[in-house]
């Protein structure tokens, strides 16, 4: 087989790949020995492949590896972050629910007596109209001389006065308290509506 320059140029890449049959390879090798131009093409092409195939030709920006690793770490972290997120969310839910529960129980809880010395008003008829003052701690029968702040008074039923934490005046309410000396403290009583 005899090959010309054009055929050699067409096949030179395949020749370098080892992708030509034996006959063509032999013919090309004979041609390279005889043709200076084709020999120069072969040398140059081989040199190009060697130079560009060198790993020094693959340059990466400074810090590329570090940034890549960090990005990958960030991407593998979300599962942990999600778990942490769930934990935080769960804790927040417990807190919110807890505070809600506390608030709710406070709303329905019987208020403490306004005075630690006050007596329970459980013996007082609940529908009895009594007088309370804003700054005072006791509820009175209207006209009781022991009402201190007569300016800011209002009239409510005894049941509501007890709910608001007022205690019966031991003087004007005396007769209702005699029978109830051993009664439980206001916050221990059920609220009657």
């Amino acid at each position, binding site marked *: 087989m005899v090959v010309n320059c*054009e055929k050699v*140029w*067409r096949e*030179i*890449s*395949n020749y*370098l*790949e*080892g*992708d030509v049959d034996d006959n063509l390879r032999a013919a090309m090798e004979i041609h390279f020995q005889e043709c*200076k*131009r084709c*020999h*120069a*093409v072969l*040398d*140059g*092409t081989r*040199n*190009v*492949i*060697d*130079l*560009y*195939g*060198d*790993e*020094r*030709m*693959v*340059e*990466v*920006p400074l810090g*590329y*590896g570090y*940034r*890549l*690793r960090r*990005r*990958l*770490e960030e*991407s*593998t972290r979300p*599962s942990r972050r999600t778990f942490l997120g769930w934990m935080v969310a769960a804790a927040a839910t417990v807190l919110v629910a807890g505070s809600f529960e506390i608030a709710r129980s406070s709303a329905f809880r019987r208020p403490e007596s306004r005075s630690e010395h006050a007596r329970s008003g459980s013996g007082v008829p609940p529908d009895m109209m009594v007088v309370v003052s804003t700054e005072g701690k006791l509820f009175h029968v209207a006209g009781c001389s022991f009402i201190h702040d007569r300016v800011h008074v209002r009239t409510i039923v005894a049941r509501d006065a007890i709910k608001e934490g007022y205690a019966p005046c031991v003087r004007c309410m005396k007769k209702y308290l005699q029978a109830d000396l051993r009664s439980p403290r206001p916050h221990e009583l059920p609220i009657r509506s």
Partner: protein
Amino acid sequence: MPERRTSLNNPVDEASEELLIRRIRDGEHDAFYELIRPYERRVYAAAFAITRNDADAEDVAQEAMLKALKNLRQFRGESRFSTWLIQITVNEARMRKRREHAHVVEPIVESDAEGNYTPRDFADWREIPSETLERKEIREKLAEALSSLSDIYREVFVLRDMQHLSIEETAKALGISTASVKTRLLRARLMLRDLLAPGLGGTWTTRLHFAKGTKPW
């Protein structure tokens, strides 16, 4: 073709790579960096060959790695892991390029050049020693010559001659036939050879100092 000299050729043992892949699939995601580490430079180079921009190439490389991690279960081991990874990178880079140049009128798609390529006639070729690659300006000039090639030639050349993928792997990664790879590869190699020859591609060669004080060409 003789065995390539670079360490990029087959950087990892395939059995240990397979084991590593299994560990990652089983949930040990932290081991993924270990898996891709031998290929991080190659992935960047593949991305750069298409985007031709440092920032884009790095971004594409990162995205490609993340995609590989996400889709690792789809890797069937029918091809080398590196080929699969490069394929993802090529797709990612092409998508990026399309997205960023969406406003630009698409050029007519280049087809493989018809007819034969006639290499320029030089009396002889004096070898450019690989030691000269230590010099940054030489590497830059080579990169410049590579950049001047059309996309279709550059992509094939980078994957085959720089990434050392096989002809078949290159064809698969680029979604073209092996015949097209061969045609483009021939053209790319000959064009680069001509670009690096004396009198073409600038006067950079005059600064080289080779043995006996002569130019390499």
